């Protein structure tokens, strides 16, 4: 389980990174926690690696102008701490504890996870659900793609080989938003079998804003639009949540058979997880409303 040979570059500027990517058959090495795994299995055999860890501009995480800006060298573990972004921070920190393990989180990055697009990865579904904006920087400059349009399929995105995912902007959630995240997995060493992400606000008992995302429920991360529609303007009660959760399983999910889960089971489980994520979000919103 040794990687094939590659040329190694460790540039210090964005321009150098972009120039290196233009060389073709090149992979970006940020955390490397999935890339090097695949290289050790030789399922990925790049001719060149661009190690971006020495690019100072790629560090940092800051909130402002209604968004949380995440740059390429922000490790998963950064989200374990309170990143002072209100409900978004709460959501990200409840998600991050489900991502691998502390030593992997110390190296792996959120942007790397987005670019890798593993169907069972949490961040792509978070980005999709929250309508994150993703910057792709290439030889012709930077273009911005909405997360929902970024993911093309398993391990596939619209990023061109010569482009780098240079920034993700996650919208800060309304202050009074409640958030919930629920994951289903076989063991603590496995990927998620399924997971659901919910964020919502409730005014006078009625859901007036909601974002719902599904992990591993289709070939791409899913924003559960149909279920969101079933929630908006409805009372935040058990009937609404259960009904919308069922809609998520039946309409938004598009599961494939897995070795230990039929498509039918997955649709059912999506419903369960979405309902629980919604319940958690409603509770969380209530806690916010109670002046937490």
């Amino acid at each position, binding site marked *: 389980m040794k*990687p094939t040979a590659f040329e190694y570059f460790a540039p210090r500027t964005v321009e150098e990174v972009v120039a290196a990517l233009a060389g073709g058959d090149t992979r970006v090495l940020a955390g490397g926690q999935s890339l090097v795994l695949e290289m050790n299995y030789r399922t990925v055999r790049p001719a060149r690696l661009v*190690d971006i860890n020495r690019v100072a501009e790629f560090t940092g995480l800051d909130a402002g102008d209604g968004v949380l800006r995440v740059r390429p060298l922000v490790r998963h573990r950064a989200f374990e701490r309170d990143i002072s972004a209100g409900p978004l921070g709460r959501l990200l920190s409840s998600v991050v504890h489900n991502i691998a393990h502390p030593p992997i989180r110390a*190296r792996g990055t959120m942007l790397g996870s987005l670019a890798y697009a593993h169907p069972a990865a949490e961040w792509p579904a978070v980005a999709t659900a929250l309508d994150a904006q993703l910057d792709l920087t290439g030889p012709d400059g930077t273009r911005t793609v909405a997360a929902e349009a970024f993911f093309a399929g398993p391990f596939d995105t619209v990023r061109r080989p010569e482009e780098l995912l240079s920034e993700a902007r996650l919208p800060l959630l309304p202050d009074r938003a409640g958030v919930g995240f629920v994951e289903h997995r076989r063991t603590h060493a496995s990927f998620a079998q399924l997971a659901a992400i919910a964020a919502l606000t409730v005014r006078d008992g009625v859901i007036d804003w909601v974002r719902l995302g599904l992990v591993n429920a289709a070939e791409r991360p899913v924003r559960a639009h149909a279920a969101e529609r079933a929630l908006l303007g409805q009372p935040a009660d058990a009937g609404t949540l259960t009904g919308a959760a069922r809609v998520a399983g039946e309409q938004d999910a598009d599961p494939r058979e897995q070795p230990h889960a039929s498509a039918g089971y997955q649709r059912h489980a999506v419903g369960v997880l979405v309902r629980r994520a919604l319940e958690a979000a409603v509770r969380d919103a209530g806690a916010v409303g109670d002046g937490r």
Partner: protein
Amino acid sequence: MRVTLTVNGERRELEVEARRTLADALRENCRLTGTHLACEHGVCGACTVLVDGEAVRSCLMFAVQCDGREVRTVEGLAGADGTPHPLQEAFSAEHALQCGFCTPGFLMLAAGALQEDPSIADDPDRLRELLTSNLCRCTGYESIRRAVTRAAGELAGGAS
């Protein structure tokens, strides 16, 4: 490629291929074979070492990425005079190893965490999350949890 690492306080200049993992550089180039390779895909944690104080999987890093950085392996855990680290004593005292193949990885995982935040052992959930990082096929883990808790107590006692 030429790489300079500081391993257990000792400066090492290595000539390695870019593709050589940190684990192989430590084991074969530095002949520090206490770092074990058991899965080479980052799941088991047997190869865990500290890079700049942080526990990482050395099978998922290339040696070239560590140029100029500090690496600490199980061989560097005991004191300079050979005094065992409290974790080493605790693993033995609590029978937290049988075949011992995963042990260096667990030791370094725990050493990194206790160094960063000794209170982690006071919080069962955080300790559980930490120790879920690595795999052991012999012990069933309970003794490992006990050992880390015991060592944390020793370290806290030593500090006060």
